[in-house]
């Protein structure tokens, strides 16, 4: 295999870990939306941490080997589709990061409630279904799908 083929493999692997991690986080978050018991919400939010690891490793691989690929393939770093892809990657991580911090606070509340009787709580239910948190997390996922489309169509290349 050539250097280009290895770089493409590592870049695509990163993309799969990044977007696949988003699928895992989205699926577990959807499950949590329908739950009432704090211990169940805590369990599902805890499992989302595995998705976060996948997203972080995927972001690093996709970004580093993506930039290397730009050089290896003879593209320019100033090309519109490459600049747009970098902006979308940063935006997706920012949205996901802010949403993730709000989810961490929700998980802390769930842990407290689980330790003190595990009774359903209106406050916890409200936080799990908070429209701002959901918009941030699912918005991040939509930005990643747009990023995938840019990577495939390469507009202007």
């Amino acid at each position: 295999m050539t250097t280009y083929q290895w770089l493409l493999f590592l870049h695509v692997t990163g993309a799969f870990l990044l977007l696949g991690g988003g699928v895992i986080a989205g699926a577990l978050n959807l499950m949590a939306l329908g739950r009432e018991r704090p211990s169940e919400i805590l369990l599902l939010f805890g499992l989302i941490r595995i998705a976060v690891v996948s997203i972080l490793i995927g972001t690093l691989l996709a970004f580093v080997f993506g930039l290397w690929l730009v050089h290896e393939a003879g593209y320019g770093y100033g090309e519109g589709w490459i600049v747009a892809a970098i902006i979308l990657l940063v935006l997706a991580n920012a949205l996901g990061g802010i949403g993730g911090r709000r989810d961490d606070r929700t998980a802390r509340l769930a842990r407290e409630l689980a330790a003190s009787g595990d009774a359903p709580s209106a406050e916890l239910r409200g936080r799990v279904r908070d429209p701002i948190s959901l918009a941030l997390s699912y918005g991040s996922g939509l930005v990643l799908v747009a990023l995938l489309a840019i990577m495939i169509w390469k507009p202007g290349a």
Partner: protein
Amino acid sequence: MLAIIRPDSWNLPLFLHVLGAIIVFGSTATVAILGFASQGRAEHAALLSRAALRTFLFGIVPGFILMRAGAQWIADKEFPDGAKTPGWVDVGFLVSEPGIVLLIILGVLTWMWKRRGAGGRAARFVPLLASLYVIALGIAIFAMSGKPGS
């Protein structure tokens, strides 16, 4: 080295194929995570098995259809009229076609896990089988992105 430029008409099927593969990859990993998480958590077994079955039905099944339909669409464009396909394409079909048998078994076991609860054998086999398919997908990703031998 100059990157290989695809004809524009290949982009939509490739996008759908890759998107489907990502959904299958993420959903199968989710089923594996839920299965491993259920080990030693009898009090949450019902929740986790229900979540796994829903992920199978609403993630793996539609994702697989999207991945396989996209694959056939782009293969028909790239290798028309029964032209011989290279090894990296064959690896992809090898993962998706015999792989469907593995996924059907995974679906049946996930359904049995939900019906019988934490104590059954299905609860132990679901995460192992899901992990095996994630590894198979990893091999396909290597073959289809790196295109070794081409």
